[in-house]
Every structure is written in structure tokens, then in C-alpha cells.
């Protein structure tokens, strides 16, 4: 699966639960919304090989 988070890009080749993808990168689930193939999902959902995972950061401002 291809994973995007801001300007970062990385790949995983196995089925993974969303919270684990976030945990591996030390991303606090409270600060993001995740979409798999364009569909908003919870951190308990699974991403499959071949999926397009987008992690969108909620925190903004200056």
C-alpha cells in the first residue's frame, strides 16, 4: 500500500490496522483523519496491500 502524510510518502506490503500505521510514525490519532482509497476510516480499520492510504493532518495555524 502507498501511504501519504503531508509531503512524506512511504510503502507497506502487508495488511495493517490504521492505528499501527500511525503508531509506527509516532502520529497522534487525535491530530489526523485517515482515508483509505478516498474513504474516511477509523483507526480500527485495516489497509490492504494495493490500497492508497492518506493521512491528513488536522492541526494548522500560526
Amino acid at each position, binding site marked *: 500500500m502507498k501511504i501519504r502524510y503531508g509531503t512524506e510518502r512511504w510503502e507497506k506490503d502487508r495488511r495493517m490496522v490504521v492505528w499501527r500505521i500511525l503508531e509506527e510514525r509516532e502520529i497522534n*490519532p*487525535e*491530530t489526523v483523519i485517515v*482515508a483509505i482509497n478516498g474513504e474516511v476510516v477509523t483507526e480500527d480499520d485495516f489497509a490492504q496491500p494495493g490500497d492508497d492510504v492518506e493521512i491528513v493532518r488536522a492541526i494548522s495555524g*500560526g
Partner: protein
Amino acid sequence: MKCRICRKKAAVKLPSHNTAFCKEDYLWWFQKNFRRTVKRFRMFKAGDRVLVGVSGGKDSLALWRLLVEIDLEADGLYIAQGIGHDELPYSDLGEDACREMAGKLGRPLKVVRVLAETGASVPELEGILRRKICSSCGLTKRYLMNREALEGGYDVLATGHNLDDEIAMLFANVLTWDLQRLAHQSPVSPQRGPKLIKKVKPLCHFSEREVLAYTMLSGIRTMREDCPHARGATSIKHKELFSRLERDSPGSKRRFYKEFLRNREIFEQAKPPAELAYCHRCAMPTTNEVCSYCRLLHRVAASKEEVHDGPPKPRKIEPEPASPAPSGLCG
């Protein structure tokens, strides 16, 4: 995880409310709570004309749409700061997203350019005023939004500040125990005199994540890029700090803000709003003889003369002017 309402697969989990919703029920929940906040704080009267300060980001565009959906005559105002460069034309991207939303809603969007108004873009102001860029950005934004709302005959100015913005501001004010700013922070700032428009923050009870989920689920296209000057900003650090707290103890953010609102009268009583005077140059409200915006205009004009007159003379760095709210929060 299942939706609390229909038991279908959930799309959004809300630990602070100890619940989860599918797409349709999340949108319903969000709109219901939005209406509740608007009503509870008496933000609008029937027939009010509303000006929405839009940036192209998720909060302000979501707000604009929600206000139109509750049948308010809500128009957009975009303040073009002239921020960005070829690789990240931040202000242009924001303007595009606002224009797209204006088209979808069928409502007018007014664009006011800081460069045309002051003679310098916001990044140029930083060099001229030798003050942090967010300070000049906030000052010009506040002044121009108030002026446009008055000149356009609007009743209320609405901004997209969310719960995380409010908490970051509250936390910064508590860290310094700035009683004046604490007294001033509120979801509704009533009209003061004929020249200070009523201001409201209808998204103040939604976290940034909740607003983001709303925009993604309702298909609103927003600018995802951050302002290049926001990097390392204290308000972002405070937001991250509170998000860690929220993760360990869901509901902390909401509690902190709610309890503040319950007790904010204490600050109001301790620091009643200062008597307003009117600026000798532009006749807008100020607590000084000449308002900060007119002083800014003067400094820009002086800097242009210096360029014509030869090398710049050494300038004294001025202290930050006292402003009624922290200037660095965008939205």
C-alpha cells in the same frame, strides 16, 4: 467499530464524546451541534447579514457553508496577504479555494489585497516594521475585516476559530495570566459603538479534527497547505501538547474550554473593556490617538521615502502594540 445511530460501520471515532458515527450520521451530528452552538450563544438574529472571514482552509470554508445552510445571508471576505512563492503560492491557493466555494454556494466573495491597501504585502511588512510577520498579518486582517464588515453594512463578522484555536489562545493567555486577553476571549464579542462590529466564532466547540472530518465527508475542497510562516509557531506546539493530553484523557480540551467559559465573567469583572476612542486619522476604534493600522501605514510610507532619499537610517525597533487578542492565530 459501529455507528452509534445506525450500527453500520463507523467512519469517525470521537473518543471525547465516547462515540462513533458513519458518514451520514456524522454529518447530521455535526450540523445539529453547530446549530446548537449558534443558538446557545445567540450569535445571529433573523435577517442578519453575515460576513465570513475566509482563508481557503477547512475551518472557514466549512463555516461559510454551514451558515448558508441555516439560511443566513452569508458572504465571504478573503484578505490576500501576498504570502508564498512559486513552489508554494499560499495566498493564491487560498484565494482559489475561496472562489470555488463562492461559486458552489452562489454567494459573493470580496477580495481585499494587503499590498493595495498598505503599499506592502504581509511578508514585506515584516521587514519594514521589524516585527514578527504574524503580528502584522493579524493586525491588518483584524482591521480590514472590521472595516469591510462596516462598509458593507453587515451585522456580524464570523470567523472559523475552532476548539483547538481557542484552547491554544486560552493556554497562551493563562501562561502569562494576561487578564485583559482572558476577559476578551469569547465565542461572541458584541458590537461596541458604531464602529466595532459584532464578532462570532460558531465552530468554537468543534476540534480541528472534527472540522476536518466534516469537510472530508461532505466533499468540501479546501487548501491543505499550511502558511509557510506557521512553521514552529507556538500555537501549533500548544495544540500538539493538548492533543497528547486529549489522547491520554479524552474530553480534556472540551472541559478546559467549557470551564473557562463558565468562569470568564471573573476576568471580565477584573478587566472591563477599555474606553474606546476613535483614531484621529481613519476614525476607526482604538485605545490610542492614532490606531495601530494607521501607524503601520505611516511606517510603510516612510520606508518608501527612505528608498527615494538614499540609504535607510537606523530605525528603533518598536515594542509590540497591545492588541485585544493574540494576532498569530489564523482562520
